[in-house]
Structure formats: structure tokens, C-alpha cells
């Protein structure tokens, strides 16, 4: 199993080198193969992760059930997004096209490599480094199209996220201080050390470290009020990058917060970290639900939907009931698949209609018979309708809330999710299920795009995403269910070892 873990760490890095130095034509198949191979390796690790904590390369890499859940979400998006991007990108033949392809695929693979590395790093410091690498690489990917909007979005992103991460660095240092009197002398911030010693740490320092970590990593996770970069970056990035940002990166940042959550729970008890998560969660959900009602830009709509789902995840974590935590982790997987599919569909619309303005796009589902229809399905999935996975996960979160005395919070959650559903479905049905504009309507009317798909690969990636969503919703595989149960157990007080 150790070799599989090492392979999972190395494969995306090899893809970075290959896709940058190989001829531009080879870059997209190389990346797709690397993505699919990573997902395969990750699936192969499920039994080992359920069996207990695994180490590789000494104690440099570490895998447990909790990291495996986040690895699954990340590698699944790596695979599907690589396939999608092969169909989405239009690389021109000249030298400029070659340069763009090299930069895009090199950056794409490096971004994925850093996100795959983050959950298998053994320690808060290495985790911080991996997350910071995701920031700088993805900021360049956001800017890669070179438009005014993309440059603005990437500046806001790199500045706000880097400042957030400097708070996370502060959190790392304070967490080190919290343990220094217990360990007496030099120690490293490996999870083994932290989880074994956490109950003897200095409570004040751990509290400060937790709040700083939630603010710092919460910046990247998109929690209110430090989410402000998110709608800009998600809407202006190329669609494959938007899918990765929303489906995988936000989850990885949540993973970092969960690691602090584990330690904090052991030191000061579950009350304090749960209250912090509840506060940030409700604020994020409220903001996102209201903003979802007033968007014009399709990708911005999905970006606010990400803030909404991160709010749900934060609230679910604050309930603390095992069933709610199970729901939260399932939600991470289902949201990754649903949001990936939604951004793939948005990418298809952008390519077909040449705009993401929802006042302009009409008749999406008839012009794009496959990807348009699946986009509607993905939006229904995001709105937590059965038979998709998010229905199951939100149901479990609410059930956990009701069973653990969080009735009021669960009610707030249901109300706000309904508001969000209204915004999401209103705009999507208007653009996708309306009649396509008649050609030649008015003098300045744009030409009606011809009926037909942009690329078969976009359809393939979306089918994969929806298939996973239905699988998660209808029949949760038993191996996955036991993995999620183990991972949820680790977030409970006294769970992690």
C-alpha cells in the first residue's frame, strides 16, 4: 500500500514535467491519463485507509480515512476536469497556442499535484505549504486568458488568499507554541504528535490557533466575510479551472480546518470549535442565498452556490452528531461532482454562445441537447433534489442537527437552502429551458448558435459527474459508506488517534 501512496504523490508531478516539456499536442492526453490514474490509485487506497493510518516515505506521507475522503473528491475532479478541458480548450496552431497549451497544462497538473499532496502531508506545516502552492499556481491559471476581468480577478485572488494564508501561517506558529510546553523542546507538527498530545496543550493558544486557522483557511474555503475573491476568480477563470477551484480547492481548505478542529476539540472540548463553525456557516449561507437571487453571470451564480455549500458544510460540522459529520463528508464528495458538472456545462454554454450572461443565453437545452440538459440536472443536484447525492448528504446533515439539539440551526439551514434553490433554478430554467431566440429577430440580434455539442469530451466528463451523483444518492457503495463512517468518527471528540 505504501507504494500506491507514493505513486499517487508522484504521478501528478510527473504529469507536470511531461505536459510542460512534451509537444503541446501530447499535453492533454498525458494530463487525462494522469488524472484517471490518480483517481484509480486513490480508489485502490480505500481499503487501506479504512484499515488504519498508513505512512510512506518515512513519516512524510500519511493517509487516514479523513484524508482519503478528500483525496477521492480531488482525484475525481482531476480526472474528469482533464477530460473536460481536452474538449473545452481551443488551442490555436501558432507559437502562441503552443505556449498557452504548455502553460495551461503545466499549471493544471501542478495545481492538481498540490491539491493531491495536501491531504497526504503529515503535519500542519507541510499542509500549509501545499495549500500555499495551490494559491500561487491557481492565481496564474485564473489570469491565463489575459482579459481585464481575469487580471483583476487574479490580483484580488492572489492578494486576499495570500493574506488569508499568512493568518494560517500565524495559526501554525501558535499551534506549535501551544504544544511546546508539553513536548518540552523541539518537535514537529506531525498529526501523530498533535493528536497524541492535544489534550495537554495550552487551551488559550489552541483557541487562538483555531480561530486564526478558520479565518485563514476559511479565506480559501470561501467563508463569509473572507470569501470576496471567490465569485470573481470562479467566474473569470477558464471553466476547467473554475471546476477545480470550486469542487476540489474549497474542499482541501475545509480539510485543513478539520485538522485544526480535531486538535482543538481534544484540547478545549467540542463546544468552542463547533460554535465558531456555526457562526461562519450561517453567515456564509445567508449571504450566498441572497446573492444567488441577483446574478446575471452564470459562472458567478455557481460561485455563490459554492459559498452556499461551504456554509452548509460548516454548519453540518458544528452539529457534531456522527450522522451529520457523515453527511458533511458525503457532501464534500457530492458537491465536488455536482459543481464540477455544473461548471463543465457552463463551459459548454460559454463555448457555444460566446457569453455567460444569463440575459443573453436562451434555449440552452435545445441548442446543446446533451450538455445543456445535463447542466439542468447538475443544478437540480446542487439544489439537493433526489435522486442525487447532495439530497442524501443534506438530509443527513439536517437529521444530525435535529438529533443533536440544533433544531433552530437546522431550520435556518433548510430555509436558506430553499431560497438558494429558488435563485439557482430560476436562472437556469430561464436560460436553458426557454425557447431559443428566433433567428433575425430585431436588427442587432445575434446569430442563433447551431444545434449540436461543442465536444464529445465535455459530454463524457458530465456523464461521469452525474453518474457519480446518482450513485451517491441512490446506492452508496458499502466500502465508501464504511470509509465515511470511519472518517466521521475521527472528527468526533476522542475519535482521532
Amino acid at each position, binding site marked *: 500500500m505504501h507504494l500506491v501512496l507514493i505513486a499517487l504523490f508522484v504521478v501528478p508531478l510527473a504529469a507536470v514535467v511531461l505536459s510542460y516539456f512534451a509537444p503541446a499536442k501530447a499535453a492533454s492526453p498525458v494530463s487525462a491519463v494522469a488524472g484517471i490514474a490518480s483517481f484509480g490509485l486513490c480508489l485502490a487506497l480505500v481499503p487501506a485507509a479504512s484499515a488504519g493510518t498508513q505512512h510512506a516515505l518515512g513519516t512524510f506521507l500519511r493517509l487516514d480515512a479523513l484524508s482519503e475522503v478528500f483525496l477521492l473528491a480531488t482525484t475525481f475532479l482531476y480526472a474528469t476536469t482533464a477530460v473536460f478541458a481536452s474538449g473545452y480548450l481551443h488551442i490555436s496552431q501558432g507559437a502562441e497556442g503552443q505556449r498557452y497549451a504548455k502553460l495551461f497544462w503545466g499549471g493544471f497538473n501542478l495545481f492538481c499535484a498540490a491539491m493531491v499532496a495536501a491531504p497526504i502531508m503529515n503535519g500542519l506545516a507541510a499542509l500549509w505549504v501545499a495549500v500555499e502552492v495551490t*494559491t*500561487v499556481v491557481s492565481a496564474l491559471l485564473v489570469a491565463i486568458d489575459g482579459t481585464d476581468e481575469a487580471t483583476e480577478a*487574479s*490580483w484580488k485572488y492572489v492578494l486576499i488568499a*495570500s493574506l488569508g494564508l499568512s493568518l494560517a501561517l500565524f495559526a501554525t506558529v501558535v499551534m506549535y*507554541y501551544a504544544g511546546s510546553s508539553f513536548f518540552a523542546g523541539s518537535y514537529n507538527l506531525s498529526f501523530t504528535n498533535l493528536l497524541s498530545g492535544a489534550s495537554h496543550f495550552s487551551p488559550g493558544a489552541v483557541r487562538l490557533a483555531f480561530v486564526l486557522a478558520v479565518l485563514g483557511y476559511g479565506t480559501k474555503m470561501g467563508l463569509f466575510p473572507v470569501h470576496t475573491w471567490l465569485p470573481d476568480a470562479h467566474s473569470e477563470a477558464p471553466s476547467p479551472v473554475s471546476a477545480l477551484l470550486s469542487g476540489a480547492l474549497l474542499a482541501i481548505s475545509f480539510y485543513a480546518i478539520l485538522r485544526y478542529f480535531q486538535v482543538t476539540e481534544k484540547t478545549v472540548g467540542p463546544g468552542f470549535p463547533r460554535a465558531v463553525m456555526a457562526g461562519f456557516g450561517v453567515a456564509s449561507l445567508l449571504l450566498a442565498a441572497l446573492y444567488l437571487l441577483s446574478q446575471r453571470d452564470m459562472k458567478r451564480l455557481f460561485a455563490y452556490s459554492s459559498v452556499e455549500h461551504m456554509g452548509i458544510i460548516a454548519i453540518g460540522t458544528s452539529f457534531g452528531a456522527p450522522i451529520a459529520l457523515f453527511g458533511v463528508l458525503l457532501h464534500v464528495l457530492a458537491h465536488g461532482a455536482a459543481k464540477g458538472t455544473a461548471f463543465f456545462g457552463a463551459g459548454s454554454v460559454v463555448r457555444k454562445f460566446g457569453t455567460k450572461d444569463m440575459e443573453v443565453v436562451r434555449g440552452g437545452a435545445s441548442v446543446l441537447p446533451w450538455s445543456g440538459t445535463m447542466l439542468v440536472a447538475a443544478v437540480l443536484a446542487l439544489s439537493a433534489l433526489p435522486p442525487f447525492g447532495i439530497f442524501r448528504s443534506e438530509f443527513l446533515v439536517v437529521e444530525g442537527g435535529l438529533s443533536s439539539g440544533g433544531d433552530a440551526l437546522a431550520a435556518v439551514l433548510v430555509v436558506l437552502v430553499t431560497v438558494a434553490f429558488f435563485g439557482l433554478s430560476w436562472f437556469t430554467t430561464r436560460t436553458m429551458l426557454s425557447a431559443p431566440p428566433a433567428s433575425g429577430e430585431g436588427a442587432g440580434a445575434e446569430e442563433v448558435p447551431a444545434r449540436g455539442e461543442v465536444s464529445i469530451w465535455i459530454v463524457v466528463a458530465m456523464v461521469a459527474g452525474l453518474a457519480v451523483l446518482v450513485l451517491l444518492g441512490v446506492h452508496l457503495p458499502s466500502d465508501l459508506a464504511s470509509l465515511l463512517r470511519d472518517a466521521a468518527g475521527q472528527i468526533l471528540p476522542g475519535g482521532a488517534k
Partner: protein
Amino acid sequence: MGPVPSGYASGADVAALLVLLTEFAMLRAPQLRSQVRLYAFQSLVVVVLTAVTGAVRCHPDLYILAALSLLLKVVIVPALMLRLLRELDVGQLHHPAGGGGGSMVLVAIAVSVFGFFALRSLGFHSKILPTATLSVAVAVVLVAFVLVVLRSDVVSQAVGFFSVENGVSIVSMAIAAGLPVVVEVSFLFDLLVAVVVFGLIMRAHHARAGTLSTGALDRLRG
């Protein structure tokens, strides 16, 4: 660890105060070039403090850290920033202080006082540096945030981010001196990568907007 030697303790306090004063000077610096130079000076003070602490406290690890910081934060990063400014041919901004210079300093004084006392109330104790140094370092971080928030040009915002790191590195020296040096070095390396990326995006912004002011960054709303 024995008690802090008094000469060293007051020296450390003076160094931390110098770092804080430099941060205030950066708030008001009208020229972007002088702001980058102030950052280089601030980093130099941090490097000296690191090296002296390494000598007094017998932490040879800190020498490695000091040497690398000297190379990166005092030489390479400022050189990269100055080259960028030279190439873009902008050293002077018309409206250096976006939100009114005086009120900016008042805000900065308020947050640094808050940081100073907030940290005291937490009761952190450093075995390496005097506690006052730690409180001042926290004030440095907060004032750097004020710099980023209130200055309206991309260079000041980037320099503000880099100086947040200076503040955090003093804090880290004070309360996490045992943090393995390889970790500290990877933090530094990360800073270098960030500088390169900041530079690329600043260049792209200048190429499109013809200015380094953030006034042009107002297309994305809601």
C-alpha cells in the same frame, strides 16, 4: 533557557520597534521605490535580530534562517520589485494615500495598540525573546494589514503582504523557536514563489490598465 540577558532584551525590543516604525513609514511613503527600500530595511532588521538571537540563545539553526532571509528578503525580493518598477517606469503615484494619510496613521495606531494589549491578555510567554517584542510583532502584522487595505496601488499591497511575513517571522522566532528549520525554509521559499507570481500579475495589470493603481480594478462587483 536562562533569563533573558538585559542588554539583549532591550536590543530585541528596539529591533521590534524599528520594524514597527518602518511599517508606519511604509504607510506614508509617497514613492513606490522608497516603499520597497523600506521593506528591505525592515527585513534587514529582522535578519539581524534572527542572527543575534541565534548567537545569544545558542540556536545555530537560526543562522541558516538568517542567511537565507538575508538573501531572499533583503536582496532578491527588493531587487525584483525595483526592477519591475524600473521596467514599468512608475515610481510615483499621484494619490499615494487612498484614504487620507492622517486617518490612515490613526487607524494604524489604533490597531497596533489593540494588538499590543490583546496579545498581553493572552498571557503568551516566550523563552527566547522578551514578551514585549512579541506584542510589537503582532502589532506589525496588524499594521501591515492596514497598509494592504488602505493603500490603493498594487505595489503597496504586495509589499504589505511581504511585511506581514516579517511580522509573523518575529512571532515565530519568539514562540516557536524549535520549529524545525526546514519548515521555516519552506515558508521562505514559498514567499519567493509568491513574489514571482505577484510580479507576473502586476505586470499583466499594468499592461492592460496602464497604471499600478487599484482604481482600475472595479469591473467585478456583486
